């Protein structure tokens, strides 16, 4: 077992050298090998003008097979994909979504001109459920934006049944969900549409990118025409032009990323299991397993912190890890209902989402992905042990 912090004074937050030379971020950050990338760029530049959109079309076809859906519409990024989805579905009034999500989920709805209504999440799964949505429903709600978190899911079939019974539209923010299987199917086919992220921090990457999946022919056609510019744009008026095209350069990276997905997933799972082993038995640290998934992509390592048992608050742990160049993150903190501009609306000031508030105060994400090795995992686990061991010294230094 690696144990570089033999004394309290070895901790970076107490003046010792950081455990890692360079900052180690949270985020998958897989990228094709230089040789493959170089070949792809040379090929792309050699046929510019002659093949406009060809790589994007190829990526869409391959992703449609990957997700098991009829239609994939690639767009600039997932946030714009969600906003387009809301506009294409002509959502009006209110849309319920969990506050425990990345802020972009709500921002997309605001840009699409609908009113986000925040609900809580389940205390065990940390995901939105029919029960948590039900608590936020009223007559003005026209849709649900459910989120599939951390390489797990919110149980999409149950939410489909729930939405159908109440005549609500259902959209899934599956930014974390590429390659995840639940309820007998890959994520991609659930609800009216699902949006996946191909941001550099996700398992599939095009540097930036959004992937809208749907089996609805008419909806897919509308999305393609909104994406523009190009043949068959929708008439001017309303949010019918999203200017959301995806470049063939992004597609070139996305195709290589998709080809490497089996290796990416296998590496993530291996590292995930390594973390599980290495963090076992540390009081106050609970590593969360992906929930609601028959097959996860293991894209996140999420810890729940019990301050009393650890001897250190979540924020204290994060600060100390940052000093060691482990850029742990407090996703999500605060809940979106406590973020500008939503928190400033009078009806939200008294909104009580106790599970969300607790999760926002106690969760930490650790790095997993391309920049993480077995040794990295051991070193990070060793740091966590050391921080617990010397917690009283940290508390003393902070006082």
């Amino acid at each position, binding site marked *: 077992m690696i144990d570089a912090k033999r004394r309290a004074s070895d901790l970076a937050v107490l003046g010792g050298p950081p455990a890692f030379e360079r900052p180690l971020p949270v985020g998958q*950050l897989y*990228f094709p090998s*230089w040789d493959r*990338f*170089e070949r792809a*760029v*040379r090929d792309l*530049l*050699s046929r*510019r*003008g002659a093949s*406009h959109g060809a790589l994007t079309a190829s990526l869409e076809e391959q992703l449609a097979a990957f997700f098991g859906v009829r239609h994939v519409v690639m767009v*600039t*990024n*997932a*946030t*714009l994909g969600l*906003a387009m989805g809301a506009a294409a579905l002509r959502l009006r009034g209110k849309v319920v979504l969990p506050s425990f999500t*990345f*802020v*972009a989920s709500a*921002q*997309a709805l*605001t*840009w699409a*001109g609908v009113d986000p209504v925040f609900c809580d999440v389940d205390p065990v799964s940390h995901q939105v459920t029919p029960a948590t949505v039900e608590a936020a429903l009223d007559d003005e709600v026209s849709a649900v934006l459910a989120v599939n978190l951390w390489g797990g899911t919110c149980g999409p079939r149950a939410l489909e049944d729930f939405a159908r019974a109440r005549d609500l539209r259902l959209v899934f923010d599956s930014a974390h969900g590429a390659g995840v299987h639940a309820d007998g199917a890959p994520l991609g086919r659930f609800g009216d549409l699902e949006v996946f992220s191909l*941001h*550099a921090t996700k398992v599939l*990457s095009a*540097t*930036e990118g959004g992937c809208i999946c749907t089996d609805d022919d008419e909806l897919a056609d509308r999305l393609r025409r909104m994406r523009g*510019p190009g043949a068959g*744009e929708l*008439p*001017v*008026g*309303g*949010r*019918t*032009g*999203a*200017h*959301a*095209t995806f*470049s*063939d*350069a*992004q597609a070139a*990276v996305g195709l290589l990323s998709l080809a490497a997905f089996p290796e990416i997933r296998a590496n993530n799972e291996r590292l995930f299991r390594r973390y599980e082993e290495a963090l076992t038995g540390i009081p106050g640290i609970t590593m969360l397993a992906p929930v609601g998934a028959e097959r996860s992509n293991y894209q996140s390592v999420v810890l729940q912190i019990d301050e009393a048992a650890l001897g250190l608050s979540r924020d204290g742990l994060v600060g100390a890890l940052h000093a060691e160049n482990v850029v742990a*993150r*407090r996703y999500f*903190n*605060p809940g979106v209902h406590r*973020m*500008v*501009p939503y928190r400033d609306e009078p009806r939200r000031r008294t909104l009580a989402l106790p599970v969300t508030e607790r999760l926002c105060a106690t969760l930490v994400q650790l790095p997993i992905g*391309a*920049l993480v090795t077995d040794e990295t995992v051991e070193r990070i686990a060793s740091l966590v042990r050391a921080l617990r061991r010397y917690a009283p010294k940290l508390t003393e230094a902070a006082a």
Partner: protein
Amino acid sequence: MTSADVVLSYCRRFYDAHQYTNTGPLSRALEERLAALHGAAYCKVFSSSFWALALAVRALALPGRSEVIVPSLADRRVADVAAWCQLKPRWCDVDADTLALSAAAVEPRVSHETALVLACHPISGWAQAGELETLAERSGVPLLFDSVTSSGETLEGRRIGTFGNAECFSLGAGSLVDGFKGGYLTTDDGALSTEVSLTRGFGFNGHDNVEHLGFNAKLNELHAAMALASLDDLDTRIARSRERRGAYEAMLRAIPGVRLRGREEGGREAPPGVIVELTEAWPSGTEETLEILRAGSVDARRYCPADLPALADRTAGSSSRSRAARLADRLVVLPSGDEVSLEDIGRTCALLGHIEATTARPGEGWPR
């Protein structure tokens, strides 16, 4: 064509740093160079020129007001940006020669509901930038320029990029600075620069602190690499652009009914594209002409979607077609980006010549 070696040498920098987006080193370097190119204090890059405009409109629009003054002859993005920013377009007709807004046309439309004036520089001419600035200052209404097709130009002795509160440009394929896709904003307003810099990244200032309603409008490092390589080559690109324009001028001169718009002697430094007007003498309808061109693999398009000025006229309750609506029907953009060769231009002009020569005029036995 931008050199693959140069593009890849820039790419190596983000590859080695493992930073593929999120305002990486290449995006920051690009911002510095574009600010210098335009003589502006600040430049911020975005995923597209459209979302640069949208975030700028959101940041600049006067609070509590509901309208944005826009030209009724323009790319559809002016209507789209108003919609996404939840503002109502207040349409304003354009000058017949410049195809752009004049201060005289805008002034009567300024009211207590005016949140912003969005003026566009069409490919073929200029909005009255200086006079619009004077009007904006007098009325207290922010002025934003859609200069999407105007990189590298000068106007009234100043570089484009320093007019109004801000200007937005394209880094899209075919633009003078080509980044595959993207856009940027230039401004001398530090507060505006800071705000749009935050809002393009979800409004975050630091890891957890959201300060504004944001969005994802970030430029990725791959696009930034391409744009930097394109900037390295700018003089050559401008020279080639002038050459393509010159080729169109020479060949279209011989085709009756096609009027090349906008270029005067000693005019724009870096003509960004080619607009032609199909005059009364042109024997075919615009839609039919476009169909024939597209069937011949010419990527021609309308300058302005037909429904945009029609929408403007309906909104104004006008019973007659505005100048913009009449012009919109006749204006066509011909391909002229860096990937277009002189041979391509020759084929395009030959096709136009063929249409002119073989289409019967009214009275010759065929309906037009």
